[in-house]
């Protein structure tokens, strides 16, 4: 990091904090603090929704995913635009009509207090743990690649977020999100342009795409149905639809963003803006990863991008074997570079047969270097037992640090910090709001005046401290981190099922939905423990189980008053 990089990084982060503080000043009531004054326009809501969903790991990991596995990850987001349309028709008008502050208030109006509390507590558990990982994962990457202290990194991100989030509430979060999205967009667009420029002069953008495609990195759509395959067209359209329906419709960290809209129209347009931007945005970030992959066809990459586990190998008995593999890898990659050059030349010659032959030779060289890399990874696994050594999260930032010019490195790292901060601020703000509205206001009987602003600030501050403490602890979790990451899918289906029952199964009343949700959640946990079904499908399984069980249980419920109709 040069002096200019530090200047860009510190300047960008200071701007975000001061902008959030300035725009978020003046909340005098609980409604103003939690609801953001309910005067947000559609573009501010849209940016805030995208920023909350975009964590730092989104654009550290996504280019790495394209480098290692190709671009099929984009299919994960195909359910999002459909979910945005469904929510615009159903839940958004209802939330506005009932003037709720959190998604879970609606459940008490329709069922009872314990169903509301169940949904609120499930949200607090899974989101409270996930927010810790949101700041831990990028902090770990930065600490390994830049040698920064992990603890200091977590502390800086946490404190910067808390300055404006605790002070200004939802309004400060939304305006800070808008500035963070500008930093993220500038960083990623400039990194993409610079990566295309860094390719050898005779390699055009089209050549680069042919090299990436020839080596299987542009496999965007996989129409083959396989429930155990995480990313294909159907898991994205069906499993992804239920996940996004639950995330945007019932997760307070997103619901709070569009509840701040000044009207149904503004809230709808904000959510639909996200539905239109997200798929092309993810495609472009993955394309950047594919370009980094092509860059390394003409430059030799390290055998493994994460230097942490490599140090363990070099300190053990396999150090000599690993060093030998590193030199084998350099030789194999040298041959691969020559074959990539030959493929580009063959394409320029205009002879299809020559191009096809050169492509086959490039694929063969790539397979050989991948074989050497796999042997290296096996040694790393042996030296780091019980962990899942992966360098996917490290590829993009390692590339940025080694290949991009001074100034742009600082901007990309500012984008990483912005991603961490944008997710954390949206999430602790929602955790604070749910604690105040669904627990304090409902169970303690708190009022909505100035006192509630302070209760909101204390709750948000407490969740921020919990997130930082969990991030510090996450370093000891090892592969349990993956379990925490899919925690969302373990609960989302059940919560969505409760909401769908509230809407469409009118005969279900009172505690029936509560018991159906508990049994369905047990079923989802059994699926997680004893089957290999991909986690995206848990959203569908949990949702269908709640609706089906609630209907079945309602056959045995005692006669009572008709439920309040929602739809």
């Amino acid at each position, binding site marked *: 990091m040069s002096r200019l990089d530090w200047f860009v990084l510190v300047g960008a982060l200071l701007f975000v904090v001061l902008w959030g503080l300035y725009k978020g000043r003046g909340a005098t009531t609980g409604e103003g603090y939690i609801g953001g004054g309910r005067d947000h326009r559609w573009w501010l809501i849209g940016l805030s929704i995208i920023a909350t969903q975009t964590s730092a790991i989104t654009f550290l990991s996504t280019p790495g995913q394209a480098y290692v596995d190709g671009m099929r990850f984009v299919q994960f987001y195909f359910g999002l635009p459909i979910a945005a*349309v469904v929510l615009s028709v159903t839940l958004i008008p209802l939330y506005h009509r009932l003037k709720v502050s959190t998604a879970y208030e609606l459940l008490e109006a329709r069922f009872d207090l314990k169903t509301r509390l169940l949904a609120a507590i499930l949200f607090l558990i899974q989101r409270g743990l996930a927010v810790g990982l949101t700041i831990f994962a990028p902090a770990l990457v930065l600490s390994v690649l830049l040698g920064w202290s992990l603890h200091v990194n977590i502390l800086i991100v946490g404190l910067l977020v808390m300055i404006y989030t605790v002070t200004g509430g939802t309004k400060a979060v939304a305006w800070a999100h808008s500035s963070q999205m500008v930093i993220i967009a500038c960083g990623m667009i400039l990194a993409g342009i610079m990566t295309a420029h860094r390719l050898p002069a005779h390699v055009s953008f089209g050549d680069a795409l042919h090299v990436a*495609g020839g080596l299987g990195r542009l496999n965007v*759509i996989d129409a083959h149905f396989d429930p155990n395959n995480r990313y294909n067209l159907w898991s994205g359209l069906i499993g992804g639809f239920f996940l996004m329906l639950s995330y945007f419709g019932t997760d307070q960290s997103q619901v709070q963003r569009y509840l701040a809209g000044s009207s149904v129209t503004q809230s709808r347009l904000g959510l639909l803006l996200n539905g239109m931007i997200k*798929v092309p945005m993810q*495609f472009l970030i993955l394309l950047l990863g594919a370009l980094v992959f092509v860059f390394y066809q003409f430059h030799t990459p390290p055998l493994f991008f994460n230097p942490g586990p490599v140090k363990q190998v070099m300190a053990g008995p396999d150090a000599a074997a690993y060093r030998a593999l590193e030199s084998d890898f350099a030789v194999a990659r040298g041959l691969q570079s020559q074959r990539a050059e030959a493929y580009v030349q063959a394409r320029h010659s205009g002879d299809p047969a020559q191009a096809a032959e050169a492509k086959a030779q490039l694929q063969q060289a790539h397979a050989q270097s991948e074989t050497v890399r796999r042997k290296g990874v096996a040694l790393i696994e042996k030296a780091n037992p019980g962990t899942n050594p992966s360098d996917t999260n490290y590829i993009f930032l390692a590339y940025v640090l080694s290949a991009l010019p001074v100034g742009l490195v600082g901007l990309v790292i500012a984008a990483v910090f912005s991603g961490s901060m944008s997710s954390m601020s949206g999430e602790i703000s929602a955790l604070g709001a749910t604690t105040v509205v669904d627990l304090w206001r409902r169970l303690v009987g708190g009022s909505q005046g100035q006192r509630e602003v302070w209760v909101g600030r204390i709750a948000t501050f407490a969740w921020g401290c919990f997130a930082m403490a969990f991030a510090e602890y996450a370093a000891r979790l090892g592969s349990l981190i993956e379990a925490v990451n899919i925690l969302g899918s373990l609960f989302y289906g059940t919560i969505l099922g409760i909401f769908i029952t509230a809407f469409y199964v009118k005969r279900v009343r009172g505690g029936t939905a509560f018991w159906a949700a508990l049994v369905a959640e047990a079923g989802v946990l059994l699926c997680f423990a004893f089957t290999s079904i991909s986690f995206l499908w848990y959203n569908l399984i949990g949702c269908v189980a709640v609706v089906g069980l609630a209907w079945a249980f309602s056959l045995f419920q005692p006669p009572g008053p008709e439920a309040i109709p929602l739809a």
Partner: protein
Amino acid sequence: DLLGSWKRIYAVVLGELLLCILLFRLFSWVYS
């Protein structure tokens, strides 16, 4: 409480998704 009716807006959002899927498929095919 842009394109004159909500149905038209929803059609644009879903149409964009369909267009993305078709273009991505074409993109994969051209460069594979």
